[in-house]
């Protein structure tokens, strides 16, 4: 492993430095059929799950095959995608905003050959490398985060939870059986990187124990006022602590005011809070971002806690499946999960899904909480 220089000279770091060039211009990467018909598309069809046809004013056609990916992927797998794109698609491919990969061709014959090739590729363990689907009224890929693979603040894992949920919902990825698209997101802490606050179903890692305080180190590694300002409920205050006769500047945390968000740890490495038994998942439902029929909605917490059960999180998977089965059976065509829950009423949502309603689900965060209570005699028994 001998060091190989790129040409960068550490003795003259600013010499030959190129900066502020940004991304490559997307026009360099558009397949010719898209470039020729840019802004001139007439209509589209979903020919089957995972396969789209777009027709331009010119009559030109482009067939797109969409495949699921794990998002976390190796360059060996990307090279395989490149081989596929070279063999079938003149060396073009793209990724979607939900981290699926799309291969495009300009005729039905090429499309069929491409699809067959994609479906034939599997990992040694047996899972599909490029499952075709993710279109229409089904369950597409799960937007997710880093989890235990790379992040320091997670309360759960992302890649693992996503894999087990998608294994269970695989039928829904490869079909158009739902009343409307179902968007699932996973965030491993409530920073909610990604789309959890606006998804049909959202898996959010939560803690249930206040932070530990590393008093002997805190003042050396933390900007104490930042840790104090980081708390949404004002639970953190400055304090002095004596350990073995030595005085330390530190913080105190009022435990009954702490709701374990972990934001003080984000700001201060001496306030770790992860915990095997304490950590787990809150399940949220009913969010959406599109403006179709109803306005965009936030997801709402319907299960306050599901334990982490690696590697396959059975309780989590079963709860999501239960919600989706009830929604699928009960909702009207075009009705997103949140539209359905609001139409039937949340009391009916809990009844139909069999999910227990607990006090944790009642909002108690500042003034806006009041607006989530029920100022009406309109309710169902």
């Amino acid at each position: 492993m001998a060091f190989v220089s790129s040409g960068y000279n550490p003795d003259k770091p600013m010499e030959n430095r190129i900066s502020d060039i940004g991304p490559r211009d997307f026009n360099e990467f558009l397949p010719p059929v898209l470039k020729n018909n840019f802004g001139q598309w007439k209509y589209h069809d979903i020919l089957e799950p995972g396969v789209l046809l777009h027709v331009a004013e010119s009559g030109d056609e482009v067939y797109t095959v969409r495949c699921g990916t794990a998002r976390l992927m190796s360059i060996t797998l990307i090279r395989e995608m490149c081989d596929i794109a070279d063999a079938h698609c003149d060396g073009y491919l793209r990724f979607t905003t939900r981290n699926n990969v799309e291969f495009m061709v300009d005729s039905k014959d090429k499309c069929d050959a491409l699809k067959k090739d994609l479906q034939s590729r599997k990992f040694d363990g047996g899972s599909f490398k490029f499952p075709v689907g993710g279109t229409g009224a089904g369950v597409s890929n799960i937007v997710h985060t880093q989890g235990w693979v790379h992040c320091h603040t997670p309360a759960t894992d992302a890649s693992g939870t996503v894999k087990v949920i998608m294994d269970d919902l695989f039928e829904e990825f490869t079909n158009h059986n739902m009343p409307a698209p179902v968007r699932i997101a996973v965030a491993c802490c409530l920073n909610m990187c990604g789309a959890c606050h606006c998804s049909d179903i959202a898996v959010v890692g939560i803690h249930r124990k206040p932070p530990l305080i590393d008093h002997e180190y805190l003042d050396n590694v933390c900007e104490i006022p930042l840790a104090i300002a980081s708390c949404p409920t004002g639970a953190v205050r400055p304090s002095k602590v004596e350990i073995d006769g030595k005085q330390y500047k530190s913080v105190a945390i009022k435990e009954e005011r702490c709701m374990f968000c972990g934001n003080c740890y984000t700001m201060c490495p001496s306030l770790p809070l992860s915990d095997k038994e304490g950590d787990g998942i809150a399940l949220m439902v009913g969010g959406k971002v599109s403006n179709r029929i109803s306005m965009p909605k936030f997801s709402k917490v319907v299960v306050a806690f599901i334990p982490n059960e690696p590697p396959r999180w059975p309780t989590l998977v079963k709860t999501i499946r239960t919600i989706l089965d009830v929604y699928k059976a009960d909702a009207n065509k075009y009705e997103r999960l949140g539209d359905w829950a609001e139409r039937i009423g949340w009391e009916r949502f809990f009844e139909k899904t069999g999910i227990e309603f607990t006090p944790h689900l009642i909002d108690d965060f500042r003034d806006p909480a009041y607006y989530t209570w029920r100022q009406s005699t309109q309710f169902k028994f």
Partner: protein
Amino acid sequence: MAKHKTPLLDQLESGPWPSFVSDLKLEAEVRAKNEKNVNYQIPVEVVEDLLGVLELSFTDGETHWKHGGIVGVFGYGGGVIGRYCDQPEAFPGVAHFHTVRVAQPTGKYYTTEFLRQIIDIWDMRGSGLTNMHGSTGDIVFLGTTTPQLEEIFYELTHDANVDLGGSGSNLRTPAACLGQSRCEYACYDAQGLCYDMTMEFQDELHRPAFPYKFKFKFDACPNSCVCALARSDFSVVGIWKDEIRIDQEAVAAYVGGEFAPNAGAHSGRDWGKFNIQTEVCDNCPSKCITYADNKLTINDKECVHCMHCINTMPRALMIGNDRGASILCGAKAPILDGPQLSSLLVPFIKVEEPYTEVKDVVENIWDWWMEEGKNRERLGETMRRMGFQKLLEVTNTKADPRHVQEPRHNPYIFWKADEVDGPWERDVNEYRKRHQR
């Protein structure tokens, strides 16, 4: 032979969904064999050790990454997320495991030539693992050591002509839906605007100068495929101002069953014969569509551009010709004061090169927020603390009923002194002449 036993992770190799574990194991093997004779610049066993540390997290139910990590490249204040394992002796391959954010082409279109070029760099100088892509849009190169950062940056900029993405309290990497490249709903060139704005504000992206992070996202229509109004501080959403174009013959083809509703999105289930009344007219949020005497009529003045009818009958209904975008501001995740979606600021703006009007709005917002925003306060929170009226003022926007979902229901109304006849400085003795104590 795998370096670490991974009995828990092994259970994630079964099932139909692409297994990241199988993929990582394969990459570990490829590196161990090194058939291409790559001169690996970070430990060959990096992927093995990542699997090892992940297995440990699956056992412990806790992450094994140390807090934070500040690394980067000269000239920039962001772009690399430093990360160190908290068990470096057990897993030396991931003692350093920094993430490099690489600026992605808008719409995430690639040629295999470009992809191969950048992953060859990563093969030699990184772990060979990626995220395609990060939630904000970046190509994410997952795992390398500090000494490789400048080398990677040098090769990316000199050989692949591509820059880093953003991180920290700055403009993060903008992203767009695929826009006009492959969608008939696109009301403006979302990719073009995204690319132009990314290039215009490179300094703001690479050198943190803001109170906190700031994101742009560009959706070409209200379907929001890149989730602009949920996931960006400055959300540009395409819209039209005139009439939805109707092809009555195509409407008849939907009614007659020749065309599948919603382009076939519900084909997996028998929903009965397409019923234009219940599926389209009755679902219209403003009830401005009627179907009578085999003719579809839309009262466009009452249309709220929700896209439902167009989504349902894409071959019969098309966006109008007077196109532009709405600008909405302030979306954010829950920390600190609760989640926000973006709020409507500019109902309609023309989106044409060189995009000066859109940039003026951004720059006015930044001038205000960079001055007034508190440390780590997102724009959405500054708006809540200082009031939506302030945002209107700084962007020279006239208040409009479209700015609210409903008017306020408390009477705690601020007035400025110059809005009120007579001075605020009043003499209590004058008052007492009229009203005895």
